[in-house]
């Protein structure tokens, strides 16, 4: 990497600015938790209830991590919800019915997981190739997959869920999504593991540096010798991979691969990452922020059910939270750090001038 590249993304990935921004999201998250705890003290903080929220975050946080990678590079991935349904069905299908095309019978757990993850990743690579090599907008190509994956999920299953049979000996697989370690769901532990790896990649590796560089200024990054196509394909592959992880966990949790999951998950994932401070203009965003964003949505959804809020109203409230987050983010961007310093500086200087 050349010196130019290092200069492209000043402080955008560093802890300094990012830490400050996540603090806001963290405060909002804690405030919300405090509010619902105050409203329902005997229910909200029960381990069983916290596990419910963790399971929510495990699903949408996982997808939001993928979105963060892509949105940083000014792309978007609309396919992850449909892909969750499709990969869940593929996983259940190969474990229960085998691969008909190759004349293979039901295959064991580990190869089934590997096949599913590879398929998810390949779909991501496919998106990346279209975006980079053909210059097709990410919005369009992933919208195509959104339709294709949803359609395939319905076509393969004819609408029937692929159900793991009652006492059918798939307990290991089912425990992935259903089991928990001292009331912390395994799926949440898996999410934390993936989030740590993703944070290390984004903040402490050359690759992560390039991801932010590509998002900050694509042309500058290209001129400085970064293989921008490869970086972007990596981001799409990550998102596809994580959609497959979500699909597997979902199939395990529900005890079936079913086409009736994943509806508009992509929107919740995008909402979570945006609430968490990822900029749709690219170049900015962190994993921790996205997880907190997913946490905010999860706590709100749980809290509104605890309060027996009308479901008509729930969506209105969630929508308003999203709008507030985006407006806040935009305003914050206008008031840059330099302006804040000038603002405070003016107080300290005035007396001396006078």
């Amino acid at each position, binding site marked *: 990497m050349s010196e130019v590249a290092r200069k492209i993304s000043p402080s955008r990935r560093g802890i300094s600015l990012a830490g400050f921004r996540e603090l806001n999201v963290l405060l909002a998250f804690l405030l919300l938790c405090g509010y619902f705890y105050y409203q*329902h003290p005997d*229910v909200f903080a*029960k381990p*069983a*209830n916290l596990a*419910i929220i963790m*399971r*929510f975050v495990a*699903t949408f946080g996982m997808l939001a991590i993928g979105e963060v990678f892509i949105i940083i590079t000014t792309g978007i991935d609309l396919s992850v919800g449909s892909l969750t349904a499709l990969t869940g069905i593929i996983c259940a299908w190969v474990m229960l019915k085998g691969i008909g095309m190759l004349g293979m019978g039901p295959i064991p757990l580990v190869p089934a997981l590997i096949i599913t993850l590879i398929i998810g990743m390949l779909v991501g690579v496919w998106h990346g190739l279209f975006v980079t090599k053909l210059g097709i907008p990410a919005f369009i190509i992933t919208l195509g997959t959104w339709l294709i994956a*949803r*359609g395939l999920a*319905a*076509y393969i299953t*004819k*609408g*029937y*869920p692929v*159900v793991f*049979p*009652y006492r059918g000996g798939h307990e290991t697989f089912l425990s992935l999504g*259903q089991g928990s370690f001292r009331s912390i769901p395994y799926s949440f532990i898996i999410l934390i593991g993936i989030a740590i790896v993703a944070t290390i990649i984004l903040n402490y590796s050359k690759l992560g540096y390039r991801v932010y560089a590509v998002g900050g200024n694509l042309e500058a990054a290209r001129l400085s010798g970064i293989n921008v196509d490869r970086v972007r394909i990596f981001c799409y592959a990550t998102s596809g991979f994580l959609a497959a992880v979500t699909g597997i966990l*979902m199939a395990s*949790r*529900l*005890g*079936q691969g*079913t*086409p*009736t*999951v*994943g*509806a*508009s*998950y992509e929107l919740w994932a995008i909402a979570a990452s945006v609430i968490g401070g990822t900029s749709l203009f690219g170049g900015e965003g962190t994993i921790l922020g996205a997880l907190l964003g997913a946490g905010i949505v999860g706590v709100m*959804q*749980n809290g509104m*059910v*605890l*309060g*027996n*809020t*009308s*479901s*008509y109203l*729930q*969506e209105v409230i969630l929508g308003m939270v999203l709008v507030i987050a985006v407006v806040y983010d935009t305003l914050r961007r206008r008031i840059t750090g330099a302006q804040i310093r000038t603002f405070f500086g003016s107080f300290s200087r005035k007396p001396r001038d006078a």
Partner: protein
Amino acid sequence: MKRYLVVLITIAMLISMVPVLGLAGAQDDMTIVVIGKSVHPYWSNVELGVKAAGEALGLPEDQVIFFVPPREDVAAQIQAMETYIAAGVTGIAIAPSDPAALEPVMARAAEAGIWVTTLDTPPVEDSVSTVYIGTDNFTAGTIAGEAMLQLLPDGGKVGIGRGSDTALNALQRTDGFLAAIEGSNIEALEPVNDREDFGTALQLANSVISANPDLAGAFGVYAYNGPAWATAVTEADMVGDIKVVAFDATTDHINFIMSGAIQATVAQREYDMGYQSVMVIAALAQNEDTEAVLAEFGAVEGVIDTGVDVLTPANVKDYEAGLDEKGVPHEWTTADWEPAEDAFEFVMPEEEEAAEMEEAVATEEAAE
């Protein structure tokens, strides 16, 4: 580049014309179309009924057509109707996703001399639809409410999970359920809406159970809502303490009935709806006297009621035997399972009312 585009569009247009041309060729004979709502096990069963009726009538496969859009989509249904009107088919049976929106195009079909009937969802009042075949969602909802009443004689809090706050079938089922429990000690919580997503449905079911430690029952409006409640009840270790009433009978419904997490599920006879729709149109097209045909099929005031099955641990084995008799395939089996001695048994309201009336008459007579 442009030239390729033109070629592509031409090919696309040719492909889209193929079914129409195919139909036009078969016009001498009878062509019957059944239009469903969405890709769903429910509609797959309707399709089985449609195909079985086609076979029973000895019609070739391409003259008994079953069409569904991938998701509920009024525009797609209208477009399909227009295509089949242009093709000049014999009759169309449609399950209108929005009866009011579909009525004009149904009227156009009727004007073109095509038999129009409805299934699954009743049409608007004074519709051109010759007959409606099915059990409407409101009635099915009241039967689910009746099952809940029988399960919770002492009342209690009941959670409701559904996939939409606006789709007619969700509203009608909920309203029917609420109408049935009105005046009882059962208190219905606000319905939770999962936007037609099984994962979210489970999430919400978990939250409702967590929020209401005294929850006595749960009602699942859409097919997956029942299994979602059952999973959540199982996770909360409250199987049997929270009574679950569901809709439809898929593999996981039966699994949960066997495990004891679902006490009752209302299954519409969708196979019969498909079968009857084709049979009625065929009969209408071959006979002069419409009224006689309808009477023969047992229509009352323009409705052929296909009824519902209420599956409980007590009768699920009989239900399986019934399906096997019709040749409806199912992945599950109750072979290695026996219901508990005190398993819940549902009594149909009419039968119950009849029994009550008899009792009342008997008491009156005794009093006299």
